[in-house]
């Protein structure tokens, strides 16, 4: 169970991006988080695995408080949080198999990592997951030779290699064409139930959010203004979330620059 309590994130002295957010995700539910760019979706997700440092508040994953972890404790906690990125963030010059096995980097030692001597069980799991999503035939191909949809599958498998207790997906379909992005959404939905894994998906496509997820959370200006089932997500909710903000499509490029500036170094 993932529980976020009164999460605040402020960059420098600016107005807070997240203003006391509360969210509870249980079981294997698939939750989509919608909101215009700058609403704080990406920041919220990145606070969970601490790619962004929260200013205050509490985030617990199955009883472990994540906000104050440091060093080795933080790395051990991150192993339990899988993440899928908008730009895939694959290791382009390495093979698909190396990318997938990189999901185990939190578990193996440095020697095993550098020499690629991963435990047999990891290799079995890698092949099993790659077969499940249909990329096993690319194991020895370089990651940048794959198409967008295939690359995102590698990203998903890498995250699942961590044996995560929660999966975060930061606009996983925003760089994909409409059909491929539906396939990825379907994949995330079915993996969530197969592995009984809670999944949080930041998404701009409201139609896909309603189709493939069982709960929608709407953010605006760092506050949660909607939390409910897709059937309750009506025109009013949509206006409340996006109202007064033009063309949510523009968010794609905005989200990229936003990612850059978040670097905690």
């Amino acid at each position: 169970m993932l529980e976020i309590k009164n999460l605040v994130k402020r960059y420098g002295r600016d107005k807070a991006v997240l203003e006391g957010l509360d969210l509870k995700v249980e079981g294997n539910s698939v939750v989509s988080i919608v909101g215009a760019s700058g609403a704080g979706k990406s920041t919220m997700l990145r606070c969970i695995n601490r790619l962004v440092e929260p200013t205050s508040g509490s985030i617990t994953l199955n009883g472990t408080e994540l906000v104050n972890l440091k060093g080795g404790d933080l790395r051990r906690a991150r192993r339990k949080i899988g993440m899928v990125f908008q730009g895939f963030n694959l290791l382009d010059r390495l093979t698909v198999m190396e990318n997938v096995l990189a999901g185990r980097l939190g578990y193996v030692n440095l020697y095993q990592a550098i020499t690629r001597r991963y435990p047999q069980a990891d290799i079995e799991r890698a092949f099993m997951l790659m077969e499940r999503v249909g990329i096993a035939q690319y194991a020895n191909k370089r990651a940048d030779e794959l198409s967008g949809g295939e690359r995102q599958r590698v990203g998903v498998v890498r995250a699942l290699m961590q044996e995560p207790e929660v999966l975060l997906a930061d606009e996983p379909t925003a760089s994909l064409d409409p059909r491929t992005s539906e396939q990825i959404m379907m994949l995330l939905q079915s993996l969530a139930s197969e592995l009984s894994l809670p999944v949080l998906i930041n998404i701009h496509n409201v139609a896909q959010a309603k189709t493939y997820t069982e709960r929608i959370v709407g953010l605006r200006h760092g506050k949660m203004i909607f939390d409910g089932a897709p059937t309750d997500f009506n025109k009013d909710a949509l206006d409340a979330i996006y109202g007064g903000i033009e063309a949510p499509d523009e968010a794609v490029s905005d989200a990229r620059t936003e990612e850059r500036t978040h670097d905690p170094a």
Partner: protein
Amino acid sequence: MTRPDAHTTAPRTWKKPPFIANPLIRYGILILAVAYLVWAFGSLPFNWARISEGLPRAARIFSGGFPPNLERYELLLTGFKESFQIAILATLLGVFLSIPFAVMAARNVAPMPIYLVGRAVIIISRSFHPVIVAILFVAAVGFGPLAGILTLTLYSIGFVGKLLAEEIEEIDWGQVEAMRATGAGYLATLFYAVFPQILPRQVGLSMYQLDSNLRASAVVGIVGAGGIGSTLMNAFGRYDYDFAFAILLVIIAVILLSEGISGWVRKKIW
């Protein structure tokens, strides 16, 4: 699209705006530069009498150098063998050591105190010409190839380290974030997300550095750091101008060859 005034007024002209807008400053700088040149030439102690005395001496040296004499080719081969050894060893050591210093000197992967140390090492090793460093090392470890190797290693660390650090600062940060998100440690992140991204650049720089070290090994030899430079200096010292000229010609040939090879390899790898 329409130009309403075109037929009523004179044809409009356009000139590129001057680099310095203010005419006073523009011509002032020009006058100052010319005045300085005149003053500098006037005040430097050129002794025309000595220069004219020297010209016949130069002619004697040049005529003594022709035809170049390759009879003592064994000395030449020994010198070149040593130069190659110096260049190759220094390149290997320098390129290898430049990696940790480059990581230290890259702002995005090194914490502030480490960054300052890394930058300092690179700046110091770049601030002196190899010849000056060679003089210091010859004084420290004595004549011979060891001084040459140490000099060129330091030179390589400075050059390759600086360029690699800049390359690290420009990597795709998303890959680093992805590795951090898996719970990977600092070194594992470096080996998976950083090094593969700078690898092509690293190979190219190493080739260039080998080329450059070969050239520099001839120069540092002149101050006593071993290699073909020392052979050349000895030949001059014994007034063997024909042998010295033979050495110079062979150096040119070898540099041309190594430049060709390294250019070809870099093109293949890019």
